[in-house]
């Protein structure tokens, strides 16, 4: 039997093998994002090593102190170490932000799959639900929910999940509507596979990258959200340190000690920048060829 092997094919295989692993470091945005976010996360994780100061210990004899060897970023109005509060606050804020993306991601992706794949009744129902949630002003809803449920991380999770799944459902649904018309899906059906297998093994791997890219920017939004709620006093509650709370607390001293509000603000911006760069980089890397 004649066997045709295109000459170039062999080299091509080597070239493309392990595409993601080979190319990630050639995407500047991704590398920069990983470095920035990595540094922030590493510092928060290593907080006990990097500082011996407690984030909650008050020293009323040394309030609003300037940076010194003992307090690299000075102290706040209650004599608490700002550097330590930034690190420990980051632990809380980043953890809550990442976890708050997870549940909407899972719910939205699942509903998006059902909506896009089965269409008709399921699609209509789920998409009307999406319309309803989208029509609600997010901040008003969340503030109302936090009032009802009481402030704290739990309320943040519930509130963000309630509105956050919508974007994922829309993204995944749209992608599936396109992907399910591809011949390989018809081929999978012709092979007699069940719907569940076709969705999870054939459709989802082809469409989930869009949702992952969006999730990166969603984390940024969540951090801003948590910080904003903290600023209003509805987010993470004292004495647990939190960037939003720090910005709010420092506000009163803006004319004399501007750094109290500015430093956590800059940290938020840096973190957001890192995540956005990772999102951009991922979008480039995961784009199908």
């Amino acid at each position, binding site marked *: 039997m004649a066997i045709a092997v295109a000459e170039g094919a062999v080299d091509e295989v080597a070239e493309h093998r392990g595409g993601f692993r080979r190319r990630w470091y050639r995407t500047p945005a991704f590398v920069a994002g990983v470095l920035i976010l990595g540094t922030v996360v590493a510092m928060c994780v290593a907080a006990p090593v990097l500082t011996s100061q407690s984030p909650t210990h008050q020293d009323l004899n040394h309030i609003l102190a300037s940076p010194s060897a003992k307090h690299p970023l000075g102290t706040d109005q209650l004599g608490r170490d700002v550097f330590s509060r930034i690190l420990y606050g980051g632990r809380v804020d980043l953890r809550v932000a990442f976890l708050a993306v997870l549940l909407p991601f899972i719910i939205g992706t699942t509903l998006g799959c059902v909506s896009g794949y089965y269409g008709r009744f399921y699609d209509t129902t789920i998409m009307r639900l999406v319309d309803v949630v989208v029509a609600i002003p997010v901040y008003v809803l969340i503030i109302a929910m936090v009032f009802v449920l009481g402030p704290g991380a739990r309320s943040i999770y519930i509130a963000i999940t309630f509105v956050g799944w919508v974007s994922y459902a829309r993204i995944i649904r749209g992608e599936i509507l396109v992907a399910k018309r591809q011949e390989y899906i018809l081929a999978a059906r012709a*092979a007699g596979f069940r719907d569940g297998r076709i969705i999870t093994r054939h459709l989802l791997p082809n469409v989930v990258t869009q949702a992952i890219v969006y999730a990166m920017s969603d984390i940024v939004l969540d951090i801003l959200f948590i910080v904003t709620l903290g600023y209003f006093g509805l987010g993470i509650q004292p004495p647990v340190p939190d960037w939003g709370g720090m910005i709010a607390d420092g506000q009163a001293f803006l004319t004399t000690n501007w750094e109290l509000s500015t430093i956590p603000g800059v940290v938020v911006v840096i973190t957001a920048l890192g995540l956005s760069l990772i999102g951009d980089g991922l979008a480039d890397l995961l784009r199908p060829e």
Partner: protein
Amino acid sequence: MSETPILEVRDLRVEIPLTRGTVHAVQSASFTVEAGQALGLVGESGCGKSMTLRAILGLLPHPGHITGGEVRFEGDDLANADPKRLRDVRGARIGIIFQEPMTALNPVMRVGDQIAETPLVRLGYGRRRARERAVELMRLVGIADPARRYEAFPHELSGGMRQRIVIAIALSGEPKLLLCDEPTTALDVTIQDQILKLLASLREQLGVSVVFVSHDLAVIAQTCQQLAVMYAGQVIETGTVDAVFREARHPYTLGLLRSVPSFDAVRKHLSSIPGSPPDLASPPHGCRFHPRCGFVRENCTTGPIPLLELGGRSVRCLYHEDCAADARRTPVVAVA
């Protein structure tokens, strides 16, 4: 006709209700595939070939559906089977090869895993065994160094290679019947020839029966023993490839055969069938081909024309003798 045929399609009807009216995509398609043989299903684009193929597996595009007729496969009527029964037949008893090898493979799944999936999921093989089976199938369809190619993604392979993978996938469920939907249309002529030879040799080696959909008569002549010609959703002529090529009895078949360009006649006029196929939402009364037919008579325009049995072949034309006489007068192709 010693054994019972593996596939028998009788009076199959497929309708697609659309807002502009119901499209009768397939209307009374009838043909038979004998065990171990290859049947060619020919016709121009939009005549219902692919619809017929998809109807056999119950995979019609929404909102199309079967409205009548039978699809007898090894004694089971697939046209009236429930979804679960149909799913059992798909893949494991009937395999299908699609036209476009670019899109028929999942772009983010290793080709080997795509071949191994049916043995793993449908035939209950273990992971290791399924993997070995996939490598075996890749070797069977003529892929060099299959163990290494197992890891490749579709975009890393050439068109011909991809079509070999698609064939391996279709065979992975060890089907009795292979449906081929224009499997070589998207390929270069040289690759096309290799794939056709591969399909022919697989049919002999594995004893699978084949339904081969194509608009290319040369391809059919090369691969099939039996022939069914479709026009405007109807099967209008069936018979052995030899008999039909030698003496076409339907004017459409004759026109189709005469419009094949050949190297012997480079400077001669290339004949074509005048007019264009009818709109399937409102097909003409009587014979569907009569507006374009050179042999048309008064009777052709009224009443449905039945498929006439002529001992081993059949034709949907009242005046097939006229056509046959014309075919004898100027023979079309010398069939070896």
